[in-house]
C-alpha cells in the first residue's frame, strides 16, 4: 500500500526527529532530572534542568500534564520531595514563573543563583488556593 515516496518520507521524518533529539543534547548538559508524581492533584511528565552551551540554565518540562487550575506557578522547593501541600507550604522556595500550560513541553529559565543541591523539587503550585498540584523530585546528575 505504501508507495516508495511515502516510505522514504516517513523514514526521513523519523531520522529527522532522531537527529533533532541528538542535536538538543549536543550543546547542553543535564544538571538534574526527575519525574512528576501526583501531589494534591494529578501530575506526570519529566522535569530536567539543562545547562545550555551559553551557560544559561533552563528547566524543561517534557510530556508534562497536570490538572487545570487557577493561577498555577512553577516553583523550586528546598526539600527532598513534596507529596502534599503541607510539605511545600513550610519549605523555602524559588518562584520560576507562571505555568505556561497544564499540558505539553515547556521551558523556564533558572537563575544562576539557584542552588540545585538545595532546591531539589519542582512544584506546580496554585497561588490562588495554596495547593501543591504536582511535584518532581530532582536527582542531580553526576
Amino acid at each position, binding site marked *: 500500500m505504501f508507495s516508495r*515516496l511515502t516510505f522514504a518520507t516517513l523514514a526521513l521524518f523519523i531520522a529527522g526527529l532522531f537527529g533533532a533529539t541528538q542535536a538538543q543534547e549536543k550543546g547542553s548538559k543535564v544538571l538534574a532530572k526527575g519525574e512528576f508524581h501526583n501531589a494534591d492533584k494529578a501530575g506526570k511528565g519529566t522535569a530536567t534542568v539543562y545547562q545550555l*552551551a551559553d551557560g*544559561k540554565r533552563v528547566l524543561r518540562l517534557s510530556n508534562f500534564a497536570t490538572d*487545570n487550575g487557577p493561577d498555577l506557578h512553577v516553583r523550586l522547593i528546598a526539600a527532598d520531595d513534596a507529596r502534599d501541600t503541607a510539605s511545600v507550604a513550610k519549605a523555602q522556595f524559588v518562584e520560576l514563573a507562571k505555568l505556561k500550560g497544564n499540558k505539553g513541553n*515547556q521551558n523556564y529559565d533558572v537563575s544562576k543563583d539557584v542552588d540545585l543541591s538545595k532546591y531539589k523539587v519542582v512544584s506546580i503550585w496554585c497561588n490562588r488556593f495554596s495547593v501543591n498540584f504536582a511535584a518532581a523530585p530532582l536527582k542531580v546528575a553526576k
Partner: protein
Amino acid sequence: MIRRTIYAVLLAVFLLGAGTVWYLFRPEKAFIDDVVDEPFPGEVSPSPASTGVE
C-alpha cells in the same frame, strides 16, 4: 401584581450586577488550561519540511 413586578425588578438588578462583576473580574481567565509545545531552547522544532523531500 405589584409584588410580582418587584420580584422581576430585583431579579433583573441581580442578574445585571452578577454580569457586571463577572465581566470585571473574568475568573475563568485565571484558569490555566492550555497545551503548549515549546522546542528545546535554541533548537528549531523538527518538521516534515526539514527532511528535504519535496
